[in-house]
């Protein structure tokens, strides 16, 4: 019945009406008058049947309109009443067909439709009974029972159909809501999948390795690069980190990050992966999920093996290049004095002249000295760190003795009277010889050198200033490169040696220069360099 109500369409309406017509014909047939071709009942049945055939051609939309269906049911009531009238059947059971019509009206139209139909049916039936039995008492069972019954049927059936309809409507709404909910869920799921795929794609195409581990140690993410570096398969996702012992050093760092809830921007560790030491550079960030379900830590890392190998190669190549440069420099520097020594020795063989012998011997001596000077420079430069024999050194005395050995240069000394520091006298002397020689070579005949001593912040500061040719910015950058020289007789090691000695003493140097205006060097040497501090400083370098 539920289906019928729900689909009170044309077909069902017509079928029910056929039943109605059939019932009417049957009742007419078995009535007091019977059914023959000449009786008005026969014409009525025919019209009734015809009406149903006409309805067959009326579009369903029109039939569904309230006024149309109300008219149809009214027509049914009138037809049945006429049938009762024609069959003289106030006493027959034809009135039962009213129930069917009222029921149909309730199903098709609800209470607004069925009550008026019931009223019409009651009035007509009451009139028919009255006509058949004039003077009938109101208390007669035909009036007292049948008419209220028609009303009751109208009320009950419309109440039933209305409540069923309401429930149906509710159910329909619920179903529609469910369908929409399902659609929404599907959409959200699809979106979620797309989003997850999108983030997965991003993580997967990152050239760095990405590994995420939950607080409980379960690996939640591993991108292809991470799988490659760790030599794992995707199966590892979902497993506990406990199963991968080689990742413990990284896991420890990740746990520390989670504990402190602070990111690690850059760090390095070495993991032992399949008996291979793999240096890894990584950054860590704690992940805190709203529910805590996914809170843990993510590591983004780079396999540094290749970079380290390249660095090693570069270092090696640099060292080789350095050795090559040194060797060619040594060969060239030594060949000239050697040529002189060899040549003058050959000349010695050819002469007995005392003056010539003296001259040639002196040249041989000079050549040997030059070679020994070069060797000294190389040794000073190449010397490894060593212990310094600390003594009190008066820098002023050193400067004065150097100035004395350069009588042609005007050197002005000023500043504190006894600039005393701790150090190795000969090494410190070498620093100042190199720097003052540089200045002396930079100045012309009108040039001067000023040397000033100061003491500040535990250092003796010796300032060596000249008004010589100065150094171009470009050359200033190369100043400290070994073998770089702008001088004809330079070894290119002077400043390298200065820096080396200063480092050994825990000191430093600053150089300012303007091309054409002169150069100022400031040498900082600690006054009380204890061995510890010197050693510390050496470590830093």
């Amino acid at each position, binding site marked *: 019945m539920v289906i019928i109500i729900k689909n009170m369409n044309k077909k069902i309406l017509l079928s029910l009406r056929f039943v109605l017509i059939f019932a009417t014909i049957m009742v007419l047939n078995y009535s007091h008058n019977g059914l023959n071709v000449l009786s008005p009942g026969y014409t009525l049945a025919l019209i009734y049947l015809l009406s149903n055939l006409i309805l067959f051609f009326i579009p369903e939309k029109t039939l569904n309109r309230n006024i149309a269906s109300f008219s149809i049911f009214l027509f049914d009531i009138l037809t049945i009443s006429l049938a009762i009238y024609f069959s003289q059947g106030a006493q027959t059971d034809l009135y039962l067909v009213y129930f069917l019509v009222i029921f149909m009206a309730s199903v098709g139209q609800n209470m607004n439709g069925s009550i008026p139909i019931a009223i019409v049916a009651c009035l007509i039936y009451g009139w028919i009974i009255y006509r058949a039995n004039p003077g009938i008492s109101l208390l007669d069972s035909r009036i007292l029972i049948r008419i209220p019954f028609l009303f009751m049927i109208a009320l009950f059936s419309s109440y039933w159909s209305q409540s069923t309809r309401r429930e149906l409507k509710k159910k329909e709404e619920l179903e529609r809501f469910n369908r929409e909910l399902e659609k929404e869920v599907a959409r959200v799921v699809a979106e979620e999948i797309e989003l997850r795929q999108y983030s997965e794609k991003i993580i997967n195409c990152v050239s760095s390795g990405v590994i995420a581990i939950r607080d409980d140690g379960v690996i939640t993410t591993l991108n292809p690069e991470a799988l490659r570096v760790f030599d794992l398969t995707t199966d590892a996702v979902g497993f506990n980190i406990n199963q991968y012992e080689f990742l413990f050093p990284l896991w420890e760092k990740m746990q520390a990050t989670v504990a402190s809830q602070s990111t690690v921007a850059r760090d390095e560790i070495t993991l032992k992966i399949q008996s291979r030491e793999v240096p890894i550079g990584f950054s860590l960030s704690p992940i805190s999920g709203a529910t805590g379900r996914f809170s843990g830590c993510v590591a983004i890392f780079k396999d540094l093996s290749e970079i380290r190998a390249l660095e090693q190669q570069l270092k090696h190549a640099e060292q080789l290049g350095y050795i090559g440069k040194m060797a060619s420099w040594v060969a060239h520097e030594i060949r000239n004095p050697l*040529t*002189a020594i060899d040549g003058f020795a050959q*000349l010695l063989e050819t002469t007995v002249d005392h003056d010539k012998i003296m001259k040639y011997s002196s040249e041989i001596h000079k050549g040997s000295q030059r070679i020994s000077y070069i060797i000294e420079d190389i040794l000073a430069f190449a010397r490894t760190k060593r212990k310094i024999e600390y003594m009190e050194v008066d820098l002023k005395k050193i400067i004065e003795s150097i100035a004395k050995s350069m009588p042609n240069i005007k050197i002005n000394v000023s500043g504190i009277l006894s600039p005393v520091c701790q150090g190795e006298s000969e090494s410190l002397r070498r620093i100042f010889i190199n720097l003052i020689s540089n200045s002396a070579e930079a100045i012309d005949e009108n040039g001067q050198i000023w040397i000033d001593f100061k003491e500040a912040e535990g250092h003796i500061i010796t300032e060596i200033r000249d008004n010589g040719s100065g150094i171009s910015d470009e050359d200033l950058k190369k100043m400290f490169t070994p073998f770089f020289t702008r001088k004809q007789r330079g070894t290119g090691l002077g400043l390298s040696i200065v820096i080396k000695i200063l480092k050994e003493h825990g000191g430093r140097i600053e150089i300012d220069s303007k091309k054409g205006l002169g150069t100022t060097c400031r040498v900082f040497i600690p006054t009380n360099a204890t061995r510890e501090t010197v050693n510390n400083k050496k470590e830093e370098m």
Partner: protein
Amino acid sequence: MNKKILICDDEESIRLLLTETLKDYYTITEAADGHEALKLITKENFDLLIIDIKMPGTHGLEAIERIRERNQEIPIIICSAYRLMEDDIIVKTSDVNAFITKPIDIKQLKMKVAEVIGS
């Protein structure tokens, strides 16, 4: 009259060695670099130039090129520590008359000079 030789080497001891070896036979003038040599050659005539090719400032080879631009005649002997093949030094052989490598063999030097200068 003695033939005149110009010796150009940045190393003082080498210049002195060459001078001491040759001064008994030739008149020697010394130049400390290519620039100076070029100046001297434009001022006076020399019968021979002995020049080092590795010098700071004006490079020896550049100096030879410039000298040849002004003076096609003057014989040139290169005296250098470079071995030509080893160091890929490209010298137009038409520009120079002989090579002497350092360390210098005194006898060979005298012979080569005599050969080139023709005395």
